[in-house]
């Protein structure tokens, strides 16, 4: 069974965000942030991890304000000077680093294959965050929420 614990996820996300994006997060429960989530819009980036007879799909939802600030911090630019492609590219890279960090901890033997992150063109309303069958992890920051959804999609025989 492929298991990425909440602690590992938090540890890796914090490490990446602090070191590369100068952003700090705190985990919060969905109930604590439900109202805030509904009012926000999110950039979505997905990545799949495949191996050990399973496929895990991770979806990262970045509050658009957080996404912009992360990008500005990463590239050393002003928020207002960014374009959409830069934001999407940086978010994909962040997810890439988190996924890489997770497998580095949970799979030192190299049995899990990382997919390539895909960023959705359109933003998603917080009212429709989909994660009915998965595990939802919510983090708060000064610039908005980050929500990470993990779903086990397929089992190979």
């Amino acid at each position, binding site marked *: 069974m492929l298991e990425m614990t909440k602690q590992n996820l938090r540890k890796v996300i914090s*490490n*990446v965000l602090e*070191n*590369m994006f*100068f952003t700090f997060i705190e985990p919060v429960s969905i109930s604590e942030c439900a109202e805030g989530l509904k009012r926000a819009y999110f950039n979505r980036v997905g990545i799949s991890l495949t191996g050990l007879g399973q496929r895990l799909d991770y979806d990262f939802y970045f509050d658009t304000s957080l996404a912009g600030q992360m*990008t500005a*911090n*990463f*590239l*050393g630019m002003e928020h207002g000077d960014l374009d959409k*492609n*830069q934001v999407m*590219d*940086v978010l*994909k*890279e962040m997810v*890439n*680093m988190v*996924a*890489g*960090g997770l*497998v*580095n901890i949970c*799979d*030192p*033997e*190299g049995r899990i294959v*990382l997919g*390539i992150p895909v960023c959705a063109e359109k933003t998603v309303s917080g009212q429709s965050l989909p994660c009915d069958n998965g595990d939802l992890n919510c983090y708060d920051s000064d610039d908005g929420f980050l929500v990470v959804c993990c779903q086990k999609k397929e089992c190979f025989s």
Partner: protein
Amino acid sequence: MAFNLLIVDDSASIRQIIKRVITISGFATGDVYEAENGLSAYKILAGNPVDLVLSDVHMPHMDGITLLEKIKNNQALCHIPVVMVTTEAREQLVDKVMKLGAAGYIAKPFHPEEIKRLLQEILGVEDAGNDEAEFEEGDF
């Protein structure tokens, strides 16, 4: 002496960051080429003199490991040091690329000092010349 570099990564942001780190470090750079994948990188190498390659591993069309193999199997290119800059730091992969002949390995997230130090070591430059280059928040 100015060094010609090739930076290979499907992320334009990462390419920009690496270029910035190298510039702030004070390395004398000549031409800095960029490629989005191994295929484009190999074409650049075929027609341009390059002193060092910094490459990601996971890229579409041709990944970094295949690029590394092709470089090391090409008599005209095999002398060029290749540094892998990637999210994957698993021992198995690190061993593999080092056995294939990579000159070094940097795991993301990285601190700019790591790139600076490795480049100094590989290029044989004792001091990159910029004594005031201290990496600060937002510099990379």
